[in-house]
C-alpha cells in the first residue's frame, strides 16, 4: 500500500473539514416550530413516566388513563416508561429533535433547568384559570419549588422525604430505649451500636448512604447534615456558594469525625445489595431513608419487619431534613399544550394522585392527602418529618454545580484532604461555574 503523503493528507482533511463545517453552520439543527392549538378536538397525548413501579403501571393503564379518556372523550393517552439513569439522554435528544412527550416527569433538580432551557410550558395562567383544581392544596414550600422567577413551571406529584431510620433491636441491645434526637445523642448511640471485628465493620453505628454512582454521590448524604447545621448550599440570590461558611464546615467535620475519629461508619464501606439497604440487611444501626424502606423490608427481608423504624430528623443547629420534590411538566414542544395541561391537572387532582401515590407508596405533595387511608403507620411517621424539610435552591445548572462539590466531599471523607480546605476548594469551583453562567 502506498505511504500516506502527510502534506496531501493534511491538505485534503482541511478542505473537507471546511466544507463540512460550512454545512454544519448553515444547517443548524435548531428549528422552531409553531403549532396551532387544536381546541376541543380529539387528540393523542403522550405521557412519559419515570417514577413508576409495576403496581403504578397497572393503576395507570387500568384505572387512571381509562378514567381520563372517559372524562375527555376522543382523547387518547400513550404512556412511555423510562428510568432516571437515562433521563438526561432521553430528554436532551427528544428536545433537540422536537419529538417530546406532551407531559413528562422530572426529578428534584429539574424545575429551574427546565425553565432555563425553555422546555417547560409555563403554567401560571392555566393554573390561575382553574380554581376547582385547588393549587393552594400544595404546601407553600412545595409550590415555591416549582416556581421559577415567578412562573409556575411544573406540578409536584411526590415528595421524597428522608428521615432517620434506626434498628430498634440494636438500640435496645445497647441500652437505648429511644432513638436519638440531636447530634450528641446520635454520636453516643452510634458509638454504642458499632460492632467491629478487628478493622472490619460487622455493624456500622451509622450508615452513610454513600451512593457509589450518580451525580449526587456524597452530596446526598452530606446535604441533610448541612441543613441540620443550619447551612445552605447557595446564597439566597444564587450568586455565591456558601459551603465555605461555618455551618457547612461543622457538618462536614462531624461526618468526617464519624468516619475517622469515632469510627462508627466506614467509608467507602458497606454497600446495599441491589435494593436491600444496609440497615435492612442488619449491617447498620442507623441510616437516612424514605418511606420506601418499608417496601424493601416487606419484599426482601420480611423477617425484619418491626425492627427498622423511622424517627424525626435530628437537631444540629436546627432540626432539618431534605425533601426531593418530583414533578410533572408540560412540554414546551407539545402540539396541544392546553390539552396536555388537562392531562397534567387530571393526574395531579387529589383523587387521581391518591391512586398513583398508593400504587407507588409515595408521599403525595397535597395536604389533603396526608391522611390518605393507604398510608401505613410507618409512612405516617416518616411524614412527621415534613415540617422540617428543605428543598434545593433554584439554580438552573444544579447538576453541574454538584459535581465539584461531590468530588471535594469525597476527598474530605476519604481523609485525603482537610475538610476545611475541601470546602474552600469546592466553593471556589462552584463560584467559577456561577460566574460562567
Amino acid at each position, binding site marked *: 500500500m502506498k505511504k500516506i503523503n502527510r502534506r496531501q493528507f493534511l491538505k485534503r482533511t482541511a478542505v473537507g473539514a471546511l466544507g463540512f463545517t460550512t454545512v*454544519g453552520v448553515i444547517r443548524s439543527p435548531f428549528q422552531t416550530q409553531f403549532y396551532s392549538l387544536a381546541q376541543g378536538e380529539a387528540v393523542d397525548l403522550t405521557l412519559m413516566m419515570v417514577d413508576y413501579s409495576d403496581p403504578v403501571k397497572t393503576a395507570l393503564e387500568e384505572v387512571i388513563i381509562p378514567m381520563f379518556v372517559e372524562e375527555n372523550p376522543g382523547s387518547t393517552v400513550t404512556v412511555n416508561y423510562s428510568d432516571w439513569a437515562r433521563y438526561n439522554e432521553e430528554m436532551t435528544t427528544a*428536545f433537540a429533535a422536537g419529538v417530546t412527550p406532551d407531559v413528562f416527569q422530572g426529578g428534584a433538580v429539574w424545575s429551574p433547568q427546565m425553565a432555563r432551557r425553555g422546555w417547560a410550558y409555563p403554567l401560571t395562567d392555566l393554573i390561575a384559570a382553574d380554581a376547582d383544581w385547588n393549587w393552594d392544596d400544595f404546601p407553600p414550600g412545595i409550590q415555591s419549588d416549582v416556581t421559577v422567577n415567578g412562573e409556575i413551571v411544573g406540578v409536584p406529584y411526590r415528595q421524597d422525604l428522608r428521615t432517620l431510620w434506626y434498628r430498634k433491636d440494636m438500640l435496645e441491645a445497647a441500652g437505648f430505649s429511644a432513638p436519638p434526637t440531636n447530634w450528641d445523642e446520635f454520636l453516643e448511640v452510634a458509638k454504642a451500636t458499632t460492632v467491629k471485628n478487628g478493622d472490619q465493620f460487622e455493624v456500622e453505628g451509622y450508615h452513610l448512604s454513600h451512593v457509589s454512582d450518580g*451525580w449526587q454521590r456524597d452530596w446526598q448524604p452530606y446535604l441533610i447534615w448541612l441543613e441540620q447545621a443550619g447551612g445552605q448550599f447557595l446564597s439566597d440570590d444564587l450568586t455565591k456558594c456558601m459551603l465555605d461558611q461555618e455551618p457547612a464546615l461543622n457538618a462536614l467535620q462531624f461526618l468526617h469525625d464519624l468516619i475517622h475519629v469515632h469510627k462508627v461508619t466506614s467509608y467507602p464501606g458497606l*454497600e446495599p445489595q*441491589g435494593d436491600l439497604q444496609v440497615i435492612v440487611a442488619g449491617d447498620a444501626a442507623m441510616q437516612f431513608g424514605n418511606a420506601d424502606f418499608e417496601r424493601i423490608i416487606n419484599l426482601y427481608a420480611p423477617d425484619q419487619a418491626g425492627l427498622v423504624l423511622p424517627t424525626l430528623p435530628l437537631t444540629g443547629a436546627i432540626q432539618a431534613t431534605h425533601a426531593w420534590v418530583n414533578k410533572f411538566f408540560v412540554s414546551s414542544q407539545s402540539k396541544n399544550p392546553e390539552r396536555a395541561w388537562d392531562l397534567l391537572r387530571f393526574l395531579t387532582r387529589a383523587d387521581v394522585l391518591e391512586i398513583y401515590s398508593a400504587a407507588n407508596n409515595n408521599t403525595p405533595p397535597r395536604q389533603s392527602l396526608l391522611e390518605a387511608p393507604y398510608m401505613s403507620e410507618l409512612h405516617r411517621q416518616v411524614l412527621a418529618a415534613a415540617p422540617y424539610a428543605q428543598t434545593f435552591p433554584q439554580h438552573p445548572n444544579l447538576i453541574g454545580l454538584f459535581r465539584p462539590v461531590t468530588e471535594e466531599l469525597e476527598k474530605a471523607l476519604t481523609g485525603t484532604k482537610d475538610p476545611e480546605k475541601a470546602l474552600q476548594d469546592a466553593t471556589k469551583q462552584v463560584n467559577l461555574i456561577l460566574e460562567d453562567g
Partner: protein
Amino acid sequence: MNIVTQTPAVKQKKSLGQRLYKYYNSQAFVALLFLIIPVGLLIILKIYPIFYNLYLSFTRYELFEPPRFVGLRNYKWVFQNDVTRQSIWNTLLFTIEAVPLGTALALVVAKLLDENFYGKIMYRTLYYLPVISSIVVSAMIFRWIFNPQQGLLNYFLGFIGIPPQTWLSDPNLALLSLVMVTIWGSIGGNMIIFLAGLQDIPKEVLEAAKVDGANAFQRFIQITIPLLRPVILFVVVTFTISTFRNFGLIFLLTQGGPLNRTNTLVWEVYMSVFANLRLGRGAALSMVMLVMVFILTILSFRVIRERQG
C-alpha cells in the same frame, strides 16, 4: 499488487458498447459502485457528525440557543481543567492495564483451545459467553460480584486470606475492577480472532521446529507469535479502540468515581453533553479523544511494519 489491464495488446476500434463496458469494468467505476452506499451511509452516520462536532468544539452551545463562536476556549478548558486532564490520564491508564493483559490472555486461551481435544467446542462456547451477554446484564451481575459484604469476589478472596475490599468504591481499585470486567468481557471475542489466525499457520513449519527439538513453549514464542503478528496487531488496535470508547461499563458501574479515578474521556464527553448541556466542551473533548486514538493506531501500524521490514 499487479492486476493490470486485460485489454488485448492489439489496438482496434471499439464499439460504444465495448467502450461503455470498459468504463463499467474500470477499477475506479467498480469502486464507486461498491463504495457509494457504504461510504454514503458512513458519511451520514460518522463523518458528518464528527465534522459537526469539530464545528461545535469552537462554539458555546447549550441546545436552547444557537451556537456562539468562542474560538479555542473549549480546548483551553480541556487542557487546563484538572478533571479533564485526569480523564486523559485515566483513559491511557485504562488502556494500558486492559489491552496487553487482555490480549495475552486471549492468545493463550486461543492457543490452548486450538489443540484437538475432547470438549473443545464446549470450552470455546463457555469462553465466548461473556461476549454474548449484553453490557447491561454483565454490569448488573458484576455490581453484585463486587459488593463488599456479600460479593462473590470477596467471598473467594477470603479463602486465600485476603480481607474484603470495596472494589468499585475504592479509589485505588475502581479502575482495576473495570479492567477486570473489560478483560472478562473481551477474551472470547479476541480468542475467536486468534483462533482464526492460528489455523492459518502452516503445520509444516511447526512440525519442522518440533523435529529440530523445540518444545511447545519455544514453538509458541519463536514461531506462532511472529507469524501471528498481523493478527495480534488487529486485536490490539480494535481492542484499544473499544477500551477507549468503553462507555457502558463506566456508566453502569462507577459513573467516573470514586475521586474521578475512572472518569475516562468518553465519560467526560457524556457529562459535558448530557449532564451539563455544554455541547461545545463535549465536542472539544471528543476531538481530543479522536486525535489520541488516531495517533495510537498509526503508531501500532508503524511498529508492526518496522518489525516486518
